[in-house]
């Protein structure tokens, strides 16, 4: 089928065609979601080459497991679940001594409480080039434990609902909510260290 024809179909129709053996229909699903899946992978595994492997393996696995897709959730949510598992496997291989899991117990120490309380420059993003800003933001995400990265990315960057995120990550809704809050507060903390209004430091010495 030509792109012009597949382009207007909804995901489920494409899934049906792909299940019936139409690889072009699956190709349209790849085109639709590869950028979002790449962003997710890139932010979980950090290394660009690893992220590429994750994306490729996720789509291959999705294609081979397509018959097991029950269609009671969105295709994208199902795909994210596969991609996140691929990404975590990749991380495990990189840090073979350390287990990486979305279920890691959360430390309940003081670190969740905001420490850095300072107003920001009025438009901090305008003081950096797009490349510098991206590095700052990616680095901040990279400093989060993997469990927080996926939750933050899916909820706040990719725009999935709490319910969809819970389904994609196979976690409970309260677990998603608590991880999201901690992720947001940790990122705020990191970015405040970089973006806070410079003059305010002076008061520390008075």
């Amino acid at each position, binding site marked *: 089928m030509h792109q012009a024809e597949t382009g207007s179909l909804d995901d489920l129709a494409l899934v049906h065609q792909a299940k019936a053996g139409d*690889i072009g229909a*699956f*190709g349209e699903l*790849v*085109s639709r979601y*590869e*950028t*979002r899946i*790449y*962003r997710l992978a*890139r932010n979980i595994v950090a290394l*660009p080459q690893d992220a*590429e492997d994750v*994306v*490729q393996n996720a*789509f*291959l696995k999705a*294609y*081979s497991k397509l018959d097991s897709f029950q269609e009671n959730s969105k295709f994208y949510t199902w795909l994210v679940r596969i991609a996140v598992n691929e990404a975590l496997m990749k991380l495990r291989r990189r840090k073979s001594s350390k287990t990486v899991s979305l279920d890691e117990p959360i430390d309940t120490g003081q670190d969740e*409480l*905001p420490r850095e*309380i*300072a*107003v*920001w420059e009025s438009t*901090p*993003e305008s003081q950096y080039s*797009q490349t510098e*800003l*991206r590095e700052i*933001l990616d680095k901040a995400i990279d400093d989060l434990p993997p469990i927080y990265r996926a939750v*933050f990315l899916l909820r*706040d*960057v990719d725009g999935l609902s709490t319910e969809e995120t819970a389904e994609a990550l196979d976690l409970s809704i309260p677990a998603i*909510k608590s991880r*999201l*809050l901690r992720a*947001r*507060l940790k*990122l*705020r903390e990191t*970015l*405040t260290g970089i*973006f806070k209004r410079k003059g305010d430091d002076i008061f520390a010495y008075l």
Partner: protein
Amino acid sequence: MLTCKEFLNSLNEYFDDNAAAEIRALVESHINTCPNCWVILDTTRKTLQIYKGMEPQPLPPGLHDRIMSALDKRK
């Protein structure tokens, strides 16, 4: 009136598009009297905005074709 801890625990809900008016009102009345929490709310909001405003990383050149040719081999 919320305590600072309750304020923190309400932050997620506050940023939810479907937040109840009651939660919004409670959070807003807290930050009006608590400058530190005002800063936390303001900088958290900016954190979310800055991430949402980022253009997605461009897909590495050739990745799409590599996926498609790997799929073709699986046929």
